[in-house]
C-alpha cells in the first residue's frame, strides 16, 4: 500500500515491539551465531562438539579480551560522537614499555614491585597519550578523527623509537619478566579482567553522572552546551579512558605474546570500532551501550572461532565479517528509521 493517504497504524504498539526487538536484536544475533557454530562444529573423537568444549569456549573469551577491553572505552569515545584511531598504537607503546621495564634490571626489592612499576609506567604512558588526544580534541576542537589519526602515527613512531624497532622478548626463565608473563597470560586473569572492566564500564555508563554526560554530549553537543554540561572535561575523560584501556590491553598483550612489540596492534582500532558498531552504538554518537559492545565483541569472536573450527579460508573469513558488519548496521538504521 503506497497510496498518498496516511495509513492509520497502531503506532504505539508497533513502536513498543520494535523497541523490544531492537534492544535484543544484538543478543538474538549472538544466539544465532552461537547456534550456527554449534550446528556446524566438527565433533571431537568422542563425538562431542568441539565448539562447546569448555577449553574452546574460554579460548574464545581470551581471544576477544584484548579487543574487548579496547572496545569498552571505544564505546564511550564513540558515544560522545568521537573516534579513537590511536588505540592500536597506544597498545604497542604500552606493550613495549612494559617489556622494557621488565627486562631492565631495576634493583627493586622484589618481583611484585618491579612488575607493578613496569605495568604502572606502561599504563601511565598510554593514559598520557589518551590525555593528549583528549586535550587536543576538547581544547583545540579539532575533529577526533584527525587528532587520533595523527596520534596513531605519532605514538607508533614513539614506540618504535623507544624500542629501536626491535621486539623485546620476555623469556621463560625464572626472572621477573617471565613471572609477569606467567601471571598475566593466565586465561582466567585475562578473561577475569575483561569481565570486571566490562562490568565497571557498564555501571559507569548507566549509573553515573559521567555516563549520562557522555551520552548527552554525543547526542547533541550544542544542546549539551546550552545545558551547561562540562563538555571538555567529559571528552578529556573519555579519551583518557581510551588510552588507559589500550594501555592495559597492551600489558596483557605483552604477557600473552611474551614480548614487547612496537609493531603490535595494527588495525586493532578497526576491530574495536567494528565491535562497537555491531553492538548497536551509533557512530555519530549519543546512542549505544556497553552491553551491546560486549555482545558485538562476542559475535565477532564466536564467528571467528566457528569459521576457524571449520577451517574456512581466512580471506573468506574477512568477507563474512564484512557482511556481518553491514548487516548489523542495517539492522540498526532500520531500528532508527521507525
Amino acid at each position, binding site marked *: 500500500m503506497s497510496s498518498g493517504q496516511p495509513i492509520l497504524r497502531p503506532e504505539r504498539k508497533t513502536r513498543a515491539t520494535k523497541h523490544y526487538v531492537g534492544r535484543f536484536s544484538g543478543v538474538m544475533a549472538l544466539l544465532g551465531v552461537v547456534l550456527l557454530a554449534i550446528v556446524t562444529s*566438527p565433533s571431537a573423537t568422542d563425538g562431542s562438539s568441539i565448539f562447546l568444549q569448555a577449553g574452546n569456549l574460554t579460548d574464545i573469551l581470551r581471544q576477544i579480551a584484548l579487543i574487548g577491553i579496547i572496545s569498552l572505552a571505544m564505546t564511550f569515545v564513540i558515544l560522545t560522537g568521537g573516534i579513537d584511531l590511536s588505540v592500536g598504537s597506544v597498545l604497542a607503546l604500552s606493550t613495549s614499555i612494559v617489556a622494557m621495564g621488565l627486562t631492565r634490571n631495576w634493583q627493586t626489592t622484589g618481583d611484585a614491585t618491579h612488575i607493578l612499576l613496569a605495568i604502572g609506567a606502561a599504563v601511565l604512558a598510554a593514559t598520557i597519550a589518551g590525555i593528549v588526544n583528549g586535550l587536543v580534541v576538547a581544547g583545540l576542537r579539532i575533529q577526533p578523527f584527525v587528532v587520533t589519526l595523527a596520534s596513531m602515527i605519532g605514538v607508533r613512531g614513539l614506540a618504535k623509537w623507544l624500542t629501536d624497532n*626491535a621486539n623485546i622478548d620476555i623469556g621463560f626463565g625464572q626472572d621477573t619478566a617471565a613471572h609477569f608473563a606467567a601471571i598475566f597470560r593466565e586465561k582466567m586473569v585475562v578473561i577475569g579482567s575483561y569481565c570486571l572492566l566490562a562490568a565497571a564500564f557498564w555501571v559507569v555508563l548507566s549509573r553515573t553522572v559521567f555516563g549520562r554526560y557522555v551520552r548527552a554530549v554525543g547526542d547533541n553537543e550544542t544542546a549539551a552546551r546550552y545545558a551547561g554540561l562540562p563538555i571538555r572535561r567529559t571528552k578529556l575523560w573519555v579519551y583518557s579512558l581510551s588510552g588507559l584501556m589500550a594501555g592495559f590491553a597492551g600489558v596483557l598483550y605483552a604477557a600473552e605474546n611474551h614480548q614487547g612489540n612496537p609493531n603490535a596492534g595494527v588495525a586493532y582500532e578497526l576491530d574495536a570500532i567494528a565491535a562497537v558498531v555491531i553492538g548497536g552504538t551509533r557512530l555519530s554518537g549519543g546512542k549505544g551501550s556497553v552491553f551491546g559492545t560486549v555482545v558485538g565483541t562476542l559475535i565477532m569472536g564466536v564467528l571467528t572461532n566457528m569459521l576457524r573450527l571449520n577451517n574456512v579460508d581466512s580471506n573468506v573469513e574477512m568477507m563474512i565479517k564484512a557482511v556481518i558488519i553491514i548487516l548489523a548496521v*542495517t539492522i540498526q538504521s532500520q531500528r532508527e528509521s521507525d
Partner: protein
Amino acid sequence: MKRFALALCAASTLLCVSCSRSSKPVATREGKRYFVAFSQANNAEPYRAAQNALMQKLFSQSPDVKLVISDAQQDNSKQIAQVETFIRQKPDLLIVAPNERAALTVVMGQAMEARIAVICLERDVLLPNYSTYIHSDNLAIGRMVGQFIVDHLTKKYGKPRGTVVAMRGLLGVEAEIKRDNGAKEVLAKYPDIKLVAAPVADWIQAKAKDRMTELLRVQPKIDVVYGHNDPMAVGAYLAAKELGREKEMIFVGVDGLGGPAGGVKKVMDGVLAATFIYPLCVEQAVQVANQILHQPGFRPAKEYTVQSTMVTSENAAKVYENSQSGGEQ
C-alpha cells in the same frame, strides 16, 4: 520483514560457505586418514606463499593426508588463536611457521602437551616446544654472501677493496640479524672493503628504492649492494637505473624464490648478480611429516638444517626451470 530476510540470507551464506569449505578428518574404510594442520605466519609474503604452494603439492601426493593451512596475517594474537583452534581439532600433525619467536612459544607448548606432533618450520621459538625444528641457516647464508662480495671485488680490482651498501630488513628480526652478521663477519677481515651505508628498508622493495635513491645522491661510488632479500636488492637496482648508475655496481639478494617474480628470474634477467636461495624447508618438512605419520615409532631429530644454494647467471636458468616444475629448487 526485510530485516528477517537479510538475516536469513546472511545465515544461509555463512552456512554454505562454512560447510562447503569444512574439512574434518574422517576415518574411511580404506584406513586411517591423517589431518595435518599448518599455521602459516603470513600468506602475503611471496616466500611463505611459495611454502604453502609447495607443501600443498607435496602432500597431495599422499592421498591419505588432509592438509589445512591457516593464515595469521602477520599477527601474533591471530596466530596464537589459530593454533589454539587447531589444538581443539586434534590434528595428527601440527606444522607452525611462527610469526615471531616469543609469541608462539606458549601455545606450541600447549600443542605438545595435547600430544600433538609439532614441526616448527623455518623460525624457532624461545623454548624447544616442538618435535622437530626444520630451518635454514641465515648466518651461513650471510657468510656465503660475504664471500661472494669479496670474490667479486677481488676480481674487479685485483685485490679485495671497494664500497658495499647493505639494504637491511625489518630490524630486530632474526633473519635480518643473522644475514647481516654473517656477511659482516666475512667482510670484517678485509679492511679495504668499506660498508658505507646500511639503510633499513623493512624487506620492502618500494622502501628500498627510496632509501637507495637518497643514498645514491650521497655516495659517489658504490660497488656492491647487498639486499637482505631479493625485493630490496631489486628496489635498489631500480633506483640506480633511474639515475643511470646501475652499471657501476652489482646487486646481490637473498631468498632466490622461483617463478616470474622471484629472485632467480631476476638473476636470469641480469638485474641481480647473484641470489642465495633461502630454502623453503618444505621438502624436508614434508618428508619428516610423512615419516611421523606413517612410521609408528619414528623419532625425528630435534633439528634439521637445510643448506642454501648460490644462484648466479651460470645456473639461474637451470634452477628456474627446476622451480617451475615444482621442486624445492
